[in-house]
């Protein structure tokens, strides 16, 4: 019990000492923290942009609409019945029926092919349904389309999901690239902290030697450096969160201007709480890992002479 208390007291001491050490060289510490912050802000910022693009895509409800052309001999009553059947499906949001007679009138009025149409026997246009599935996900839309295609009254389902699929694929690609950038920059952060700690170890080699001479264990010697790395990572991650917030703040007015032009109420979302927590905890762990690598590599080399 007493030894546990002693252990915790030592840790607290190390934590505070490490913070004091950072504060005692504000310029050098800030530079290191800034490098870490930029390395962490890049993937975090890119992640925010991809998240926003994904949200924009999800809000594009019209993207999933598709047209159903019924067989030419289906009557108006039957068309209305089919529309109700499809509209009653749980995965369909709504169905709009465009009556063939109304469509013909409209076509005649707007297309300028009135004379050509008169030459035809009867109305060449079929009844048309515009179906909006509840979910915009490609698989869900496909499922609805397949069900509709199986109805005996259906002649043709025209599904234009290709561009949605392409956009989704692009977003997935962008997301994967952000993942890769995250891994690379995490390695960079580890190396930056490791190198900083290596310099710190070199500059404190006399102290390390003396501590070893009076019986300090490897753990005792390593701990201050691990806490130093932890602080670097934590401070860098905190600064990265601030950088991302500032970048979003700077982007907000032009984004709103663009959204307004498109008549959309789209708003730029920031880093969610959960991901901010991941950023901060991850940054601290990376700092700790960098320090651990540096101590594992360099502390053993300093032996009393």
């Amino acid at each position, binding site marked *: 019990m007493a030894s546990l208390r*002693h252990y915790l007291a030592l840790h607290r001491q190390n934590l505070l000492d490490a913070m004091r050490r950072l504060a005692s060289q504000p310029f050098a510490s800030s530079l290191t923290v800034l490098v870490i912050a930029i390395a962490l802000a890049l993937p975090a910022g890119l992640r925010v942009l991809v998240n926003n693009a994904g949200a924009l895509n999800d809000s594009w409800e019209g993207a999933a609409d598709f047209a159903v052309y019924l067989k030419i001999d289906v009557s108006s009553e039957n068309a209305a019945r089919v529309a109700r059947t499809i509209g009653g499906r749980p995965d369909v949001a709504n169905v709009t029926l465009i009556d063939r007679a109304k469509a013909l009138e409209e076509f005649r009025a707007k297309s300028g092919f009135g004379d050509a149409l008169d030459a035809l026997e009867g109305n060449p246009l079929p009844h048309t349904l515009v179906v909006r599935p509840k979910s915009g996900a490609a698989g869900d839309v496909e499922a609805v389309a397949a069900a509709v295609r199986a109805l005996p009254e259906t002649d043709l389902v025209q599904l234009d999901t290709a561009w949605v699929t392409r956009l989704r694929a692009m977003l997935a690609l962008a997301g994967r690239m952000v993942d890769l950038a995250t891994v690379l920059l995490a390695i960079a952060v580890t190396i930056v902290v490791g190198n900083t700690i290596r310099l710190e170890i070199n500059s404190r080699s006399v102290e390390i*030697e003396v501590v070893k*001479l009076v019986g300090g*264990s*490897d753990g*005792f010697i390593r701990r201050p450096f691990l806490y130093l790395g932890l602080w670097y990572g934590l401070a860098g991650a905190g600064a990265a969160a601030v950088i991302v917030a500032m970048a979003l703040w700077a982007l907000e007015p032009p984004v709103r201007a663009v959204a307004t032009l498109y008549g959309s109420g789209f708003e730029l979302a920031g880093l969610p709480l959960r991901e901010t927590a991941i950023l901060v905890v991850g940054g601290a762990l990376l700092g700790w890992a960098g320090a651990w690598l540096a101590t594992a590599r360099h502390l053993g080399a300093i032996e009393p002479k």
Partner: protein
Amino acid sequence: MIRFENVFKRYPSGREALSGVSFNLQRGEFAFLTGPSGAGKSTLLRLIALIERPTRGTVLINNQNTARISRGRIPPFRQRLGVVFQDHKLLHDRSVFDNVALPLVIAGASRREIERRVRAALDQVGLLGRESHAPITLSTGEQQRVGIARAVAPRPDVLIADEPTGNLDPDLSREIMELFTRFNEVGVTVLIATHDLELIEHLPHRQLRLVAGELAADSGRGDA
């Protein structure tokens, strides 16, 4: 307490620093290790502190064969050993108190215990009241006494010192030796390497004389 059995130490450069050294220092004994520079005095002390390992032969400290102490067990071994250095090896970024407290902090003493022992050690070396000073503001002799306070604060069984008076004038040197004598009187085994024969010629303690890595003279052999 300190027992060397036919100890050889050869450095990777090929230089043989110790050749077949054997002696036995009893618990509570006080001995000087003398000899010209390069005779192997420092090497011998380094073998005791496990800074070096012997090439051949056996070094026993408190009946423990140092060859059997693994790298990971060296820290607790050193915690029971007081070492004084010619260059003091004080940490200049902390106070006198924190320097003396260092081995106690490492050993896991409580805050109260640390305060008590640091004050006691500083009192013994005559530096009580200087706890908050920076070592750099002290004279060389005072810095050496801080180094001694640090070595004795954890109450070690054995105290070894490498040229502790190397940079001091004769008066200060005598004071330092008196300090070591006082620690010896309370039962600490003391071994001091020095080349200052004038300083120690009037002292009654045993002398081990090293010449070119061999034990050339021993003024009084302890029983095995």
